[in-house]
């Protein structure tokens, strides 16, 4: 399993997602200003920054929930600034939410099936039972097995502990088979004892997906990310490897220093 998917040496990694001078203003507030950002195939990139830095606005601009006041978003070289959210999902951008957005009254399996059915284009069909699409159910079950959720597949979301609900949040996004996956604080609200199940799941993601993770928890960032971008006041403040960011005195000042050191700065 582990031997698969290593990008062949010498093959240039392709830029999957790119923003050019991306900006968004709310009235007088410049929530995001002039962000140039690149995410390559297989990237494991973390976006950090103090509260109100504009991280969530940035994600909303990437997914098409918000339209930028200036600048552009490109997916695999194609300008998708004008594409609506649903289009961008079809083109391969998926996200998870900081606060769970699940189909709470439905079973875990159904949650994933709805996502898979949407991806394979079955969700508009009216005249045959969903149960007949065993391909969709199989794929969803396999995904649940991979995320170690198979034992609760039949349970309603509301019957699950929060940590495992976060896994379902992730499963719905993976069911869309994205090329670019945006994770908005995947471990938020999870008790630290259950943290590892989220981290294991993220580390088990297919290596060809470009992953951008917004996170407050520095343990998660430094374990997961190969590159880190620091956002402050709507702009990119610094970018580099986790080691560079950790040792950057200015970053320590504005952000990491708050808790006395990176590993102590739990969000």
């Amino acid at each position, binding site marked *: 399993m582990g031997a698969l998917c290593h990008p062949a040496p010498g093959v240039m990694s392709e830029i999957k997602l790119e923003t050019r001078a991306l900006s968004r203003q709310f009235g007088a507030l410049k929530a995001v200003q002039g962000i140039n950002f690149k995410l390559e195939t297989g990237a494991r990139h973390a976006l950090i920054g103090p509260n109100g830095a504009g991280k969530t606005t940035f994600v909303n601009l990437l*997914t098409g*929930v918000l339209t930028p006041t200036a600048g552009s978003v490109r997916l695999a070289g194609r300008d998708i600034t004008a594409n609506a*959210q*649903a*289009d*961008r*999902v*079809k083109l391969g951008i*998926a*996200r998870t*939410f900081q606060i769970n*957005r*699940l*189909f*709470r*009254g*439905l*079973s*875990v*399996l*159904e949650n994933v*099936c*709805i*996502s898979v*059915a*949407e*991806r394979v284009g*079955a*969700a*508009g*069909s*009216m*005249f*045959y*039972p*969903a*149960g*007949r*699409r*065993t391909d*969709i*159910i*199989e794929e969803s*079950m*396999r995904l649940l*097995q991979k995320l170690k959720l*198979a034992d609760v*597949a*039949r349970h309603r979301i509301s019957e699950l502990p929060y940590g495992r609900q976060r896994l379902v949040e992730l499963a*719905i996004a993976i*069911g*869309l088979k994205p090329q670019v996956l945006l994770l908005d604080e995947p471990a938020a609200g999870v008790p630290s004892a259950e943290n590892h199940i989220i981290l294991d799941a993220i580390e088990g993601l297919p290596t060809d997906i470009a992953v951008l993770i917004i996170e407050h928890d520095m343990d998660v960032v430094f374990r997961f990310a190969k590159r880190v971008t620091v956002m402050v006041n709507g702009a990119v403040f610094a970018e580099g490897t986790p080691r560079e960011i950790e040792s950057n005195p200015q970053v320590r000042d504005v952000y990491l220093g708050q808790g006395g050191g990176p590993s102590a700065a739990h969000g």
Partner: protein
Amino acid sequence: MTGAAIPAKPNADAVQLGHPAALALARRHHFRWWEALPWLAAIGFYFAFPDYLAFGSGLLITILFALSLDLALGYAGIITLGHAAFFGAGAYTVGMLAYYGIWSEPITGLLLAGLAAAIIGLLSGLVLLRTTGLTLLMLTLCTMALLQETANMARAYTGGFDGLPDLTIDPVFGIFEFNPLYSNTQYLFSLAVLLTCFLFVRTLIYSPFGQSLTGIRENLLRMHAIGAPVRRRLIICYTISAATAGIAGGLWAQTNAFVNLSALDLDRAATVLIVLILGGYGRLYGAFIGAVAYLALEHFLARVYPTAWQLGLGLLLVLIALFARNGIIGLGETLWARYATRHRAS
């Protein structure tokens, strides 16, 4: 039961589908034995109470109307208080066509009623379904009020406040006389229409489309985030729901042989909502249980306390809203689950 018989093969696919959750999902649309009960009861009613068949037709029409509301409100979560708009549109379509002698064949008449209601559903849905919550509720109410006032003012065509009396409807298949004197024909005709519409709605809600409607009800934002064309799905659902309500309205006009403004009344819209809440929304059979329970309650309470029977109904609704949010069916489900766990424990 047959699931246990599938041997555990090394084949990965067989293992996936052998999982109880996967099996349950793959078989959810299968007919259960108890689903025959309402229809057997309806046929039993025909033989047991030949003098009450007109009442029976009314009950079947209420079920059909509640079923149409369940599709929009129970499955897609479209909050509406104006569903009588479509009931009335269907009723006036049948009524005007028959009154002016343009068209009085019953089956195609119902199709036209459904079509007219669907058009109004589509046009209003295009505007309404941009909104949610209270705004949506008010706008559905406004649509209905506008239609009612239109029907009131277009006296020359609709008969205004007096409505259109003495509609003549052709015999069914050209053979069976269709008027209030032949309530047996009307009852069986209504039952056939209800069964047809029910099978259609049932197919729809178990389809992938129905599953995605449930997704929209459960979490609108998430459906957007997985790339679902949410508004288009809602509009399609609303249009189908409107068409079904229109057929119920058309049937009401045909069986009563008249149509008047009460078809478009807030009272009618509220009653069907109460029926659905009483029975349990989003549950397919909630419409059946709710309609029977409502009419039984009306009958019983009116006998006990004729002047203020609605007070009893109101109290019951408060209790349902407080303690049994999923209606009678939901209450049954809870009790059954409790019984099942206790049974398993002992």
